[in-house]
Protein backbone atom coordinates (compact mmCIF):
# COMPACT_ATOMS: atom_id res chain seq x y z
CA UNK A 1 0.00 0.00 0.00
CA UNK A 2 1.57 3.24 -1.13
CA UNK A 3 0.11 6.30 0.57
CA UNK A 4 1.17 8.44 -2.39
CA UNK A 5 -1.31 6.49 -4.48
CA UNK A 6 -4.24 7.07 -2.14
CA UNK A 7 -6.29 8.59 -4.97
CA UNK A 8 -6.01 5.34 -6.94
CA UNK A 9 -7.63 3.36 -4.15
CA UNK A 10 -10.02 5.67 -2.39
CA UNK A 11 -12.58 7.98 -4.04
CA UNK A 12 -12.92 11.65 -3.23
CA UNK A 13 -15.12 14.51 -4.37
CA UNK A 14 -12.92 17.43 -3.51
CA UNK A 15 -14.55 20.69 -2.51
CA UNK A 16 -12.79 23.88 -3.56
CA UNK A 17 -13.65 25.29 -0.15
CA UNK A 18 -11.34 23.63 2.42
CA UNK A 19 -13.05 22.01 5.38
CA UNK A 20 -9.87 22.31 7.45
CA UNK A 21 -7.75 25.44 7.65
CA UNK A 22 -4.47 25.15 9.51
CA UNK A 23 -2.53 28.09 10.94
CA UNK A 24 0.92 26.69 10.15
CA UNK A 25 2.69 29.39 12.14
CA UNK A 26 1.39 27.63 15.27
CA UNK A 27 2.98 24.36 14.05
CA UNK A 28 6.40 25.98 13.81
CA UNK A 29 6.41 26.49 17.56
CA UNK A 30 4.92 23.07 18.35
CA UNK A 31 7.06 20.61 20.33
CA UNK A 32 5.15 17.51 19.25
CA UNK A 33 3.63 17.74 15.74
CA UNK A 34 1.87 14.43 16.29
CA UNK A 35 -0.35 15.26 13.32
CA UNK A 36 2.52 14.77 10.87
CA UNK A 37 3.02 11.10 11.72
CA UNK A 38 -0.47 10.24 12.99
CA UNK A 39 -2.57 11.38 10.02
CA UNK A 40 -3.43 8.16 8.13
CA UNK A 41 -3.61 10.06 4.83
CA UNK A 42 -0.35 12.00 5.23
CA UNK A 43 -2.06 15.36 4.85
CA UNK A 44 0.58 16.98 7.09
CA UNK A 45 4.28 17.17 6.24
CA UNK A 46 6.84 18.85 8.40
CA UNK A 47 10.03 20.01 6.76
CA UNK A 48 12.87 20.07 9.27
CA UNK A 49 15.04 21.98 6.80
CA UNK A 50 12.58 24.80 6.17
CA UNK A 51 11.01 24.53 9.66
CA UNK A 52 7.67 24.56 7.93
CA UNK A 53 4.44 22.59 8.05
CA UNK A 54 2.61 21.90 4.81
CA UNK A 55 -1.02 20.83 4.88
CA UNK A 56 -3.23 19.55 2.07
CA UNK A 57 -6.84 18.53 2.62
CA UNK A 58 -7.46 16.76 -0.72
CA UNK A 59 -6.84 13.19 0.46
CA UNK A 60 -8.36 13.72 3.91
CA UNK A 61 -10.18 10.61 5.13
CA UNK A 62 -12.18 12.74 7.61
CA UNK A 63 -11.15 10.57 10.53
CA UNK A 64 -10.48 13.43 12.96
CA UNK A 65 -7.08 12.20 14.15
CA UNK A 66 -5.45 15.61 13.61
CA UNK A 67 -8.22 17.38 15.48
CA UNK A 68 -7.71 15.12 18.50
CA UNK A 69 -3.89 14.94 18.55
CA UNK A 70 -3.28 18.67 18.01
CA UNK A 71 -2.71 20.16 21.43
CA UNK A 72 -1.89 23.65 20.17
CA UNK A 73 -5.31 24.39 18.72
CA UNK A 74 -3.72 25.22 15.36
CA UNK A 75 -6.95 25.00 13.39
CA UNK A 76 -8.61 28.16 12.16
CA UNK A 77 -11.33 25.86 10.90
CA UNK A 78 -12.01 22.19 11.47
CA UNK A 79 -15.31 20.85 10.26
CA UNK A 80 -16.57 18.06 8.07
CA UNK A 81 -16.83 18.80 4.35
CA UNK A 82 -20.03 20.24 2.96
CA UNK A 83 -22.67 17.65 2.22
CA UNK A 84 -21.80 15.49 -0.78
CA UNK A 85 -18.07 16.35 -0.71
CA UNK A 86 -15.02 14.58 0.67
CA UNK A 87 -14.16 10.92 0.91
CA UNK A 88 -16.58 8.35 -0.53
CA UNK A 89 -16.09 4.76 0.63
CA UNK A 90 -17.47 2.08 -1.61
CA UNK A 91 -16.72 -1.18 0.12
CA UNK A 92 -15.31 -0.78 3.55
Amino acid at each position, binding site marked *: *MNIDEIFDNTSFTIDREPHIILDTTVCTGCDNRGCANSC*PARCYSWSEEEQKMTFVYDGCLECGTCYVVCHRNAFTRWRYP*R*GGFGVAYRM*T
Partner: protein
Amino acid sequence: MSKNYQAIVIGAGPAGSSAALTMARAGLDVALVERGTFPGEKNMFGGILHRMTSIEEILPDFWERAPLERHIAKKGTTFMTDQASFHVQHETVNFDRAPYNGYTVFRPNFDRWLAEEAVKAGATLITRSTVDDLVLKDGRIAGVSIQGRSGQLNAPVVIAADGVLSFTAQKAGLRRPTFNADQMAVGVKALIDMPREMIDERFGLVRDQGFANEFVGCTGGVRGGGFLYTNYDSLSVGLVFHLGSLRISGKTPYDLLNEFMEQPQVAKLVRGGRLQEYSAHLIPEGGYNMIPEVVGNGILVTGDAAALCNATGVNLEGINLASHSGILAGRTVVEAHERNDFSTKTLKRYKERLDLSWIMQDLKGFKNAPKMLHINRIYNEYPDLVCSMMEHIYRIDGTPKMSIPKLVLREVKKKVGLKNAISDAFTAWRAL
Protein backbone atom coordinates in the same frame (compact mmCIF):
# COMPACT_ATOMS: atom_id res chain seq x y z
CA MET B 1 -36.24 27.65 3.33
CA SER B 2 -37.28 26.11 6.63
CA LYS B 3 -38.98 22.81 7.23
CA ASN B 4 -40.69 21.52 10.32
CA TYR B 5 -40.37 18.04 11.75
CA GLN B 6 -41.29 16.40 15.03
CA ALA B 7 -37.72 15.17 15.50
CA ILE B 8 -34.36 15.53 13.76
CA VAL B 9 -31.74 12.80 13.76
CA ILE B 10 -28.20 13.88 12.86
CA GLY B 11 -26.33 11.08 11.12
CA ALA B 12 -27.74 8.08 9.25
CA GLY B 13 -25.44 5.46 10.74
CA PRO B 14 -26.67 2.51 12.81
CA ALA B 15 -27.62 4.69 15.80
CA GLY B 16 -29.39 7.37 13.76
CA SER B 17 -31.28 5.02 11.45
CA SER B 18 -32.39 2.86 14.39
CA ALA B 19 -33.67 5.97 16.18
CA ALA B 20 -35.42 7.26 13.05
CA LEU B 21 -36.96 3.85 12.38
CA THR B 22 -38.30 3.63 15.96
CA MET B 23 -39.83 7.10 15.85
CA ALA B 24 -41.24 6.78 12.32
CA ARG B 25 -42.88 3.48 13.26
CA ALA B 26 -44.60 5.32 16.12
CA GLY B 27 -45.95 7.84 13.63
CA LEU B 28 -43.59 10.77 14.20
CA ASP B 29 -42.51 13.01 11.32
CA VAL B 30 -38.74 12.50 11.42
CA ALA B 31 -35.86 14.02 9.45
CA LEU B 32 -32.78 11.80 9.15
CA VAL B 33 -29.90 14.07 8.11
CA GLU B 34 -26.77 12.59 6.51
CA ARG B 35 -23.67 14.37 5.21
CA GLY B 36 -22.72 11.68 2.69
CA THR B 37 -24.30 11.35 -0.75
CA PHE B 38 -25.85 8.19 0.72
CA PRO B 39 -25.84 6.66 4.22
CA GLY B 40 -22.70 4.60 4.83
CA GLU B 41 -20.53 6.55 2.41
CA LYS B 42 -18.45 7.97 5.27
CA ASN B 43 -18.58 4.96 7.54
CA MET B 44 -15.91 2.42 8.19
CA PHE B 45 -15.35 -0.17 10.89
CA GLY B 46 -13.13 -3.08 11.81
CA GLY B 47 -15.45 -5.02 12.09
CA ILE B 48 -18.09 -7.45 12.97
CA LEU B 49 -21.80 -6.83 13.10
CA HIS B 50 -22.81 -8.72 16.23
CA ARG B 51 -26.25 -9.90 17.26
CA MET B 52 -28.68 -6.99 17.39
CA THR B 53 -31.48 -8.26 19.56
CA SER B 54 -33.38 -4.99 19.85
CA ILE B 55 -33.56 -4.33 16.11
CA GLU B 56 -34.72 -7.91 15.62
CA GLU B 57 -37.83 -6.91 17.58
CA ILE B 58 -38.59 -4.09 15.14
CA LEU B 59 -37.48 -5.96 12.00
CA PRO B 60 -38.12 -9.66 12.70
CA ASP B 61 -36.64 -10.67 9.35
CA PHE B 62 -33.60 -8.44 9.86
CA TRP B 63 -31.02 -11.19 9.32
CA GLU B 64 -32.71 -12.49 6.18
CA ARG B 65 -32.96 -9.11 4.49
CA ALA B 66 -29.92 -7.11 5.65
CA PRO B 67 -26.99 -7.03 3.19
CA LEU B 68 -24.50 -9.17 5.08
CA GLU B 69 -21.25 -10.88 4.14
CA ARG B 70 -20.01 -14.03 5.91
CA HIS B 71 -21.10 -15.15 9.38
CA ILE B 72 -18.23 -15.51 11.83
CA ALA B 73 -17.81 -19.19 12.60
CA LYS B 74 -14.16 -19.05 13.54
CA LYS B 75 -12.27 -16.57 15.69
CA GLY B 76 -8.55 -16.38 16.25
CA THR B 77 -6.00 -14.39 18.20
CA THR B 78 -2.38 -14.13 17.16
CA PHE B 79 0.52 -12.94 19.29
CA MET B 80 3.31 -11.93 17.00
CA THR B 81 6.70 -10.36 16.53
CA ASP B 82 8.26 -9.37 13.22
CA GLN B 83 9.55 -12.95 12.87
CA ALA B 84 7.24 -15.29 14.73
CA SER B 85 3.63 -15.79 15.70
CA PHE B 86 1.61 -17.83 18.17
CA HIS B 87 -1.98 -18.40 17.21
CA VAL B 88 -5.01 -19.59 19.16
CA GLN B 89 -8.33 -20.24 17.54
CA HIS B 90 -11.87 -20.99 18.57
CA GLU B 91 -14.49 -22.62 16.41
CA THR B 92 -17.87 -24.07 17.32
CA VAL B 93 -20.86 -25.37 15.39
CA ASN B 94 -22.95 -23.14 17.66
CA PHE B 95 -21.58 -20.10 15.81
CA ASP B 96 -22.23 -21.84 12.49
CA ARG B 97 -26.01 -21.86 12.76
CA ALA B 98 -28.77 -19.34 13.31
CA PRO B 99 -28.95 -17.17 15.25
CA TYR B 100 -25.43 -16.34 14.14
CA ASN B 101 -23.15 -14.54 16.56
CA GLY B 102 -21.81 -12.01 14.06
CA TYR B 103 -21.26 -11.11 10.43
CA THR B 104 -18.82 -9.15 8.36
CA VAL B 105 -20.57 -6.37 6.43
CA PHE B 106 -19.74 -3.52 4.09
CA ARG B 107 -20.87 -0.31 5.71
CA PRO B 108 -21.81 1.49 2.48
CA ASN B 109 -24.28 -1.36 1.83
CA PHE B 110 -25.45 -2.04 5.35
CA ASP B 111 -25.93 1.54 6.53
CA ARG B 112 -27.75 2.47 3.33
CA TRP B 113 -30.09 -0.48 3.75
CA LEU B 114 -30.89 0.34 7.39
CA ALA B 115 -31.60 3.99 6.53
CA GLU B 116 -33.93 2.82 3.76
CA GLU B 117 -35.83 0.78 6.35
CA ALA B 118 -36.34 4.02 8.30
CA VAL B 119 -37.54 5.70 5.10
CA LYS B 120 -39.98 2.85 4.44
CA ALA B 121 -41.37 3.45 7.92
CA GLY B 122 -41.97 7.10 6.98
CA ALA B 123 -38.79 8.97 7.93
CA THR B 124 -37.47 11.66 5.57
CA LEU B 125 -33.85 11.01 4.61
CA ILE B 126 -31.94 14.18 3.76
CA THR B 127 -28.52 13.35 2.29
CA ARG B 128 -25.63 15.63 1.24
CA SER B 129 -26.28 17.73 4.32
CA THR B 130 -23.64 18.46 6.93
CA VAL B 131 -25.16 19.90 10.07
CA ASP B 132 -23.49 23.19 10.89
CA ASP B 133 -24.99 24.05 14.25
CA LEU B 134 -27.86 23.64 16.63
CA VAL B 135 -30.49 26.36 16.36
CA LEU B 136 -31.66 27.73 19.69
CA LYS B 137 -34.84 29.64 20.41
CA ASP B 138 -35.56 31.05 23.87
CA GLY B 139 -32.67 28.98 25.23
CA ARG B 140 -34.13 25.72 23.89
CA ILE B 141 -33.13 23.60 20.94
CA ALA B 142 -35.36 24.42 18.01
CA GLY B 143 -33.60 22.72 15.12
CA VAL B 144 -30.39 22.54 13.11
CA SER B 145 -28.74 24.56 10.37
CA ILE B 146 -27.03 22.95 7.36
CA GLN B 147 -23.58 23.98 6.09
CA GLY B 148 -23.72 26.05 2.93
CA ARG B 149 -27.53 26.36 2.93
CA SER B 150 -29.83 29.09 4.05
CA GLY B 151 -32.82 28.18 6.17
CA GLN B 152 -32.95 25.43 8.71
CA LEU B 153 -34.68 22.28 9.84
CA ASN B 154 -36.96 22.83 12.81
CA ALA B 155 -37.91 20.34 15.49
CA PRO B 156 -38.43 20.47 19.25
CA VAL B 157 -35.95 17.64 19.78
CA VAL B 158 -32.68 16.50 18.18
CA ILE B 159 -30.97 13.13 18.39
CA ALA B 160 -27.19 13.39 17.93
CA ALA B 161 -25.99 10.31 16.08
CA ASP B 162 -23.17 12.11 14.31
CA GLY B 163 -20.42 9.71 15.27
CA VAL B 164 -17.29 9.60 17.35
CA LEU B 165 -16.34 13.25 16.81
CA SER B 166 -19.78 14.55 17.74
CA PHE B 167 -19.65 18.27 17.25
CA THR B 168 -23.36 18.28 18.03
CA ALA B 169 -22.80 16.96 21.56
CA GLN B 170 -19.89 19.38 21.92
CA LYS B 171 -21.92 22.38 20.76
CA ALA B 172 -24.75 21.41 23.10
CA GLY B 173 -22.22 21.55 25.96
CA LEU B 174 -22.62 17.85 26.70
CA ARG B 175 -19.04 16.81 25.88
CA ARG B 176 -16.80 18.51 28.46
CA PRO B 177 -13.86 18.67 28.41
CA THR B 178 -13.32 18.18 24.72
CA PHE B 179 -11.99 15.10 22.90
CA ASN B 180 -9.00 13.45 24.51
CA ALA B 181 -6.30 11.58 22.57
CA ASP B 182 -5.90 9.13 25.47
CA GLN B 183 -9.49 7.97 24.99
CA MET B 184 -9.38 7.64 21.23
CA ALA B 185 -7.95 5.21 18.71
CA VAL B 186 -7.60 5.43 14.96
CA GLY B 187 -8.19 2.41 12.77
CA VAL B 188 -6.76 2.06 9.27
CA LYS B 189 -7.91 -0.61 6.88
CA ALA B 190 -6.92 -2.11 3.57
CA LEU B 191 -9.74 -3.78 1.69
CA ILE B 192 -8.09 -6.57 -0.28
CA ASP B 193 -9.78 -8.19 -3.22
CA MET B 194 -9.44 -11.98 -3.29
CA PRO B 195 -11.38 -14.74 -5.06
CA ARG B 196 -13.93 -16.45 -2.87
CA GLU B 197 -12.47 -19.93 -3.46
CA MET B 198 -9.03 -18.73 -2.45
CA ILE B 199 -10.41 -17.34 0.83
CA ASP B 200 -12.34 -20.57 1.56
CA GLU B 201 -9.28 -22.67 0.87
CA ARG B 202 -6.82 -20.49 2.72
CA PHE B 203 -8.83 -20.01 5.90
CA GLY B 204 -10.55 -23.39 5.96
CA LEU B 205 -14.09 -22.14 5.35
CA VAL B 206 -17.15 -23.67 3.69
CA ARG B 207 -20.54 -22.26 2.68
CA ASP B 208 -20.93 -18.75 4.10
CA GLN B 209 -18.53 -19.28 6.97
CA GLY B 210 -16.27 -16.41 7.91
CA PHE B 211 -13.10 -16.00 9.92
CA ALA B 212 -12.12 -13.14 12.20
CA ASN B 213 -8.67 -12.75 13.63
CA GLU B 214 -7.10 -10.24 15.98
CA PHE B 215 -3.37 -9.65 16.27
CA VAL B 216 -1.23 -8.31 19.10
CA GLY B 217 2.40 -7.32 18.72
CA CYS B 218 2.06 -5.98 15.19
CA THR B 219 2.00 -2.24 15.84
CA GLY B 220 5.68 -1.39 16.17
CA GLY B 221 5.34 -0.92 19.93
CA VAL B 222 2.48 1.56 19.57
CA ARG B 223 -0.52 0.62 21.74
CA GLY B 224 -2.95 -1.12 19.47
CA GLY B 225 -3.60 -4.25 17.50
CA GLY B 226 -4.38 -5.71 14.14
CA PHE B 227 -7.32 -7.44 12.53
CA LEU B 228 -8.13 -9.60 9.56
CA TYR B 229 -11.72 -10.40 8.61
CA THR B 230 -13.05 -12.34 5.66
CA ASN B 231 -15.80 -10.96 3.44
CA TYR B 232 -17.23 -13.04 0.59
CA ASP B 233 -14.54 -12.13 -1.89
CA SER B 234 -12.26 -9.76 -0.05
CA LEU B 235 -10.29 -9.42 3.16
CA SER B 236 -10.44 -6.51 5.58
CA VAL B 237 -6.96 -6.11 7.01
CA GLY B 238 -6.04 -3.30 9.33
CA LEU B 239 -4.50 -1.87 12.44
CA VAL B 240 -5.88 0.15 15.33
CA PHE B 241 -3.69 2.62 17.23
CA HIS B 242 -4.28 4.37 20.50
CA LEU B 243 -3.91 8.06 19.62
CA GLY B 244 -2.06 9.13 22.76
CA SER B 245 0.56 6.52 21.98
CA LEU B 246 0.67 6.99 18.19
CA ARG B 247 1.26 10.72 18.34
CA ILE B 248 4.44 10.42 20.37
CA SER B 249 5.72 7.36 18.47
CA GLY B 250 6.88 9.17 15.34
CA LYS B 251 5.50 6.22 13.35
CA THR B 252 2.88 6.44 10.65
CA PRO B 253 -0.26 4.27 10.34
CA TYR B 254 0.38 3.39 6.69
CA ASP B 255 4.04 2.35 7.21
CA LEU B 256 2.99 0.16 10.13
CA LEU B 257 0.14 -1.30 8.07
CA ASN B 258 2.61 -2.19 5.31
CA GLU B 259 5.00 -3.76 7.81
CA PHE B 260 2.09 -5.75 9.22
CA MET B 261 1.06 -7.06 5.82
CA GLU B 262 4.70 -7.90 5.03
CA GLN B 263 5.31 -9.84 8.24
CA PRO B 264 6.10 -13.35 6.90
CA GLN B 265 3.10 -15.11 8.46
CA VAL B 266 0.64 -12.36 7.55
CA ALA B 267 2.09 -11.99 4.05
CA LYS B 268 1.05 -15.58 3.34
CA LEU B 269 -2.54 -14.74 4.28
CA VAL B 270 -2.86 -11.70 2.02
CA ARG B 271 -0.76 -13.04 -0.87
CA GLY B 272 -2.52 -12.94 -4.24
CA GLY B 273 -4.90 -10.19 -3.11
CA ARG B 274 -5.19 -6.74 -4.60
CA LEU B 275 -5.71 -3.51 -2.66
CA GLN B 276 -9.15 -2.10 -3.40
CA GLU B 277 -9.69 0.63 -0.87
CA TYR B 278 -7.87 2.31 1.99
CA SER B 279 -9.85 3.87 4.81
CA ALA B 280 -9.49 5.31 8.30
CA HIS B 281 -11.80 6.09 11.21
CA LEU B 282 -11.65 7.07 14.87
CA ILE B 283 -12.84 4.77 17.65
CA PRO B 284 -14.03 6.01 21.05
CA GLU B 285 -12.17 3.44 23.10
CA GLY B 286 -12.18 5.22 26.45
CA GLY B 287 -15.15 3.17 27.61
CA TYR B 288 -17.38 4.11 30.53
CA ASN B 289 -15.22 7.01 31.69
CA MET B 290 -15.45 8.68 28.30
CA ILE B 291 -19.25 8.84 28.07
CA PRO B 292 -20.47 12.45 27.87
CA GLU B 293 -23.75 13.68 29.27
CA VAL B 294 -26.21 11.93 26.99
CA VAL B 295 -29.24 14.12 27.69
CA GLY B 296 -29.75 17.86 27.43
CA ASN B 297 -32.67 20.19 26.99
CA GLY B 298 -34.16 18.97 23.69
CA ILE B 299 -31.24 16.71 22.79
CA LEU B 300 -30.19 13.07 23.17
CA VAL B 301 -26.80 11.60 22.28
CA THR B 302 -26.46 8.07 20.88
CA GLY B 303 -23.94 5.58 19.49
CA ASP B 304 -20.31 6.59 18.94
CA ALA B 305 -21.32 10.21 19.61
CA ALA B 306 -21.97 9.07 23.19
CA ALA B 307 -18.81 6.90 23.13
CA LEU B 308 -20.94 3.77 23.41
CA CYS B 309 -18.27 1.43 22.21
CA ASN B 310 -16.99 -1.64 24.00
CA ALA B 311 -13.36 -2.15 23.07
CA THR B 312 -12.06 -4.52 25.70
CA GLY B 313 -9.55 -6.13 23.43
CA VAL B 314 -11.43 -9.43 23.43
CA ASN B 315 -14.58 -8.40 21.60
CA LEU B 316 -14.90 -5.12 19.77
CA GLU B 317 -18.50 -3.94 19.79
CA GLY B 318 -19.99 -0.73 18.50
CA ILE B 319 -22.81 -1.12 16.00
CA ASN B 320 -24.94 -3.20 18.36
CA LEU B 321 -24.56 -0.58 21.10
CA ALA B 322 -25.25 2.20 18.60
CA SER B 323 -28.42 0.60 17.29
CA HIS B 324 -29.77 -0.23 20.74
CA SER B 325 -29.05 3.26 22.09
CA GLY B 326 -30.76 4.73 19.01
CA ILE B 327 -33.86 2.66 19.69
CA LEU B 328 -33.91 3.70 23.37
CA ALA B 329 -33.51 7.37 22.39
CA GLY B 330 -36.26 6.99 19.77
CA ARG B 331 -38.67 5.50 22.32
CA THR B 332 -37.94 8.33 24.73
CA VAL B 333 -38.69 10.96 22.08
CA VAL B 334 -42.00 9.22 21.27
CA GLU B 335 -42.93 9.50 24.95
CA ALA B 336 -41.81 13.13 25.05
CA HIS B 337 -44.19 13.86 22.18
CA GLU B 338 -47.04 12.20 24.05
CA ARG B 339 -46.36 14.55 26.96
CA ASN B 340 -45.38 17.44 24.71
CA ASP B 341 -42.39 18.02 26.98
CA PHE B 342 -38.83 17.97 25.61
CA SER B 343 -37.04 19.19 28.70
CA THR B 344 -34.23 17.28 30.37
CA LYS B 345 -36.77 16.13 32.94
CA THR B 346 -38.63 13.97 30.40
CA LEU B 347 -35.68 13.11 28.17
CA LYS B 348 -33.58 11.83 31.08
CA ARG B 349 -35.72 8.69 30.84
CA TYR B 350 -33.29 7.81 28.00
CA LYS B 351 -30.36 7.85 30.42
CA GLU B 352 -32.31 5.66 32.84
CA ARG B 353 -33.08 3.21 30.05
CA LEU B 354 -29.43 3.13 28.98
CA ASP B 355 -28.30 2.53 32.57
CA LEU B 356 -30.67 -0.41 32.92
CA SER B 357 -29.66 -1.94 29.59
CA TRP B 358 -26.79 -4.30 28.82
CA ILE B 359 -24.99 -1.36 27.17
CA MET B 360 -24.15 0.42 30.41
CA GLN B 361 -23.86 -2.79 32.37
CA ASP B 362 -21.20 -4.01 29.95
CA LEU B 363 -19.41 -0.67 29.80
CA LYS B 364 -19.46 -0.36 33.59
CA GLY B 365 -18.36 -3.97 34.02
CA PHE B 366 -15.40 -3.44 31.71
CA LYS B 367 -14.59 0.10 32.78
CA ASN B 368 -11.07 -0.92 33.81
CA ALA B 369 -10.34 -2.45 30.40
CA PRO B 370 -8.91 0.79 28.93
CA LYS B 371 -6.50 0.87 31.88
CA MET B 372 -5.32 -2.63 31.05
CA LEU B 373 -4.87 -1.65 27.43
CA HIS B 374 -2.54 1.12 28.58
CA ILE B 375 0.01 -1.44 29.70
CA ASN B 376 2.59 -0.86 26.99
CA ARG B 377 4.17 -4.30 27.50
CA ILE B 378 1.09 -5.93 25.91
CA TYR B 379 2.13 -4.57 22.53
CA ASN B 380 5.74 -5.73 22.44
CA GLU B 381 7.11 -7.66 25.39
CA TYR B 382 4.26 -10.12 25.92
CA PRO B 383 3.86 -11.22 22.29
CA ASP B 384 7.65 -11.58 22.18
CA LEU B 385 7.54 -13.59 25.41
CA VAL B 386 4.86 -15.95 24.11
CA CYS B 387 6.60 -16.51 20.78
CA SER B 388 10.04 -17.10 22.28
CA MET B 389 8.65 -19.44 24.95
CA MET B 390 6.92 -21.56 22.32
CA GLU B 391 10.08 -21.63 20.24
CA HIS B 392 12.03 -22.95 23.23
CA ILE B 393 9.36 -25.53 23.98
CA TYR B 394 9.19 -26.80 20.40
CA ARG B 395 12.90 -26.65 19.58
CA ILE B 396 14.72 -29.98 19.58
CA ASP B 397 18.42 -29.59 18.94
CA GLY B 398 20.32 -32.22 20.90
CA THR B 399 20.68 -30.12 24.06
CA PRO B 400 18.94 -31.04 27.35
CA LYS B 401 15.48 -29.48 27.80
CA MET B 402 14.57 -27.19 30.63
CA SER B 403 11.35 -28.01 32.55
CA ILE B 404 8.47 -25.87 31.31
CA PRO B 405 7.78 -24.00 34.60
CA LYS B 406 11.48 -23.19 34.87
CA LEU B 407 11.56 -22.05 31.27
CA VAL B 408 8.48 -19.85 31.75
CA LEU B 409 9.99 -18.23 34.82
CA ARG B 410 13.30 -17.60 33.07
CA GLU B 411 11.64 -16.06 30.01
CA VAL B 412 9.27 -13.92 32.09
CA LYS B 413 12.22 -12.58 34.10
CA LYS B 414 14.20 -11.92 30.94
CA LYS B 415 11.50 -10.36 28.75
CA VAL B 416 9.17 -8.62 31.19
CA GLY B 417 10.45 -8.76 34.77
CA LEU B 418 8.67 -10.73 37.47
CA LYS B 419 7.29 -7.72 39.32
CA ASN B 420 5.86 -6.23 36.13
CA ALA B 421 4.28 -9.54 35.16
CA ILE B 422 2.51 -9.88 38.51
CA SER B 423 1.27 -6.30 38.48
CA ASP B 424 0.06 -6.66 34.85
CA ALA B 425 -1.72 -9.91 35.63
CA PHE B 426 -3.49 -8.17 38.50
CA THR B 427 -4.55 -5.24 36.27
CA ALA B 428 -5.79 -7.64 33.58
CA TRP B 429 -7.72 -9.71 36.12
CA ARG B 430 -9.47 -6.61 37.44
CA ALA B 431 -10.19 -5.35 33.93
CA LEU B 432 -11.79 -8.46 32.55
